[in-house]
């Protein structure tokens, strides 16, 4: 077994974790990312020890919102000119920059203390699956997804379709009423 010092370094070393944001609900995903950034997934957690990990999020352009949130949810955007503040819908905001929606959500979910800016620098967002090589080398583990993406009908196999439970089996000459 390694010595005490080596064991201590191994326990408190910072991990690099991968997260796939494809078709994941945004607020739940942000909460999960916050948990890993703060280090609350470790049994050695303490708010004073900086024990959080790096989180690399891929496919941020395919993140999902519930119901009609894409049209309804508004983000405040600073134009740089005085006295003008624009409220953009999530759709336009996402079109402007596909990584900013998750960035804003995680920023609002993190605890509002002086650690927040520090933890945001450990969040790495990429719109698709192209990651720089120096980050790819560091990746250790995958964050479990919030929701398994649903399957389309053509993605099911014939056996699964046949064995799916049915409420009733209609007769051969059954025609539904219009």
């Amino acid at each position, binding site marked *: 077994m390694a010595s005490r010092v080596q064991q201590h370094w191994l326990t408190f070393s910072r991990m690099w974790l991968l997260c796939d944001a494809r078709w994941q609900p945004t607020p739940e995903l942000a909460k999960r990312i916050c948990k890993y950034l703060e280090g*609350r*997934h470790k*049994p050695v*957690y*303490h708010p004073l020890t900086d024990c959080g990990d790096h989180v690399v999020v891929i496919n941020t352009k395919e993140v999902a919102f519930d119901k009609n949130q894409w049209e309804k949810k508004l983000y405040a955007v600073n134009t740089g000119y005085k006295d003008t503040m624009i409220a953009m819908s999530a759709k336009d905001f996402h079109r402007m920059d596909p990584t900013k929606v998750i960035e804003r959500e995680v920023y609002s979910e993190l605890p509002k203390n002086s650690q927040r800016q520090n933890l945001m620098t450990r969040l790495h967002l990429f719109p698709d699956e192209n990651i720089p090589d120096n980050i790819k080398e560091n990746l250790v583990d995958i964050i479990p997804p919030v929701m398994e993406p649903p399957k389309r009908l053509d993605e099911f196999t014939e056996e699964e379709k046949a064995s799916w439970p049915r409420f009733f089996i209609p007769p051969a000459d059954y025609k539904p009423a219009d």
Partner: protein
Amino acid sequence: MKAALQILTEHPPLFPKFRVESPEKEMFLTLARYVRSPPPDRWWKRRYVFNNTWRFWGRHRNCYKIAIQSMQHAWRHARRGRAEKKRFVRGLWIERLRAASEEHGLSYEHLVVGLDMVQIDRKVLSHLAIYEPKTFKALAEIARISYGEGLMAATGKQPEGVFTRVIHWE
């Protein structure tokens, strides 16, 4: 007695003060104490305060009128803090157990309900989760089975991947 009462009316005792219900009782009780242990003089009284405030800032350290207030505030904060520390530390144990049980595929609520009869408190459980991971894994397995099927089902069989030393009771 009369002479003593006369002394007290001329020089009423300032420090220490004994709170009693009526002024007549006050004179009656404090007489004995006044004679047996005369009140400390000013220097000693203030020395007591400055011994407690030697590390405060500025006038809170050296000026009695300000230091006495700072000392009392500090004592009030310390009293409140002693109660808050207990709450904070328990919350930390629970959070650590939540993380450790998620590592084994359990939720914290299932772990605690499953280990209800096992009577290990959260303090020791969180210590085991950090320093004795294999022991905690065995406890998590017990909690998993106990939550679903009860404690008898959990303790009857040997959990997989865990080595236990069998104790024979004579």
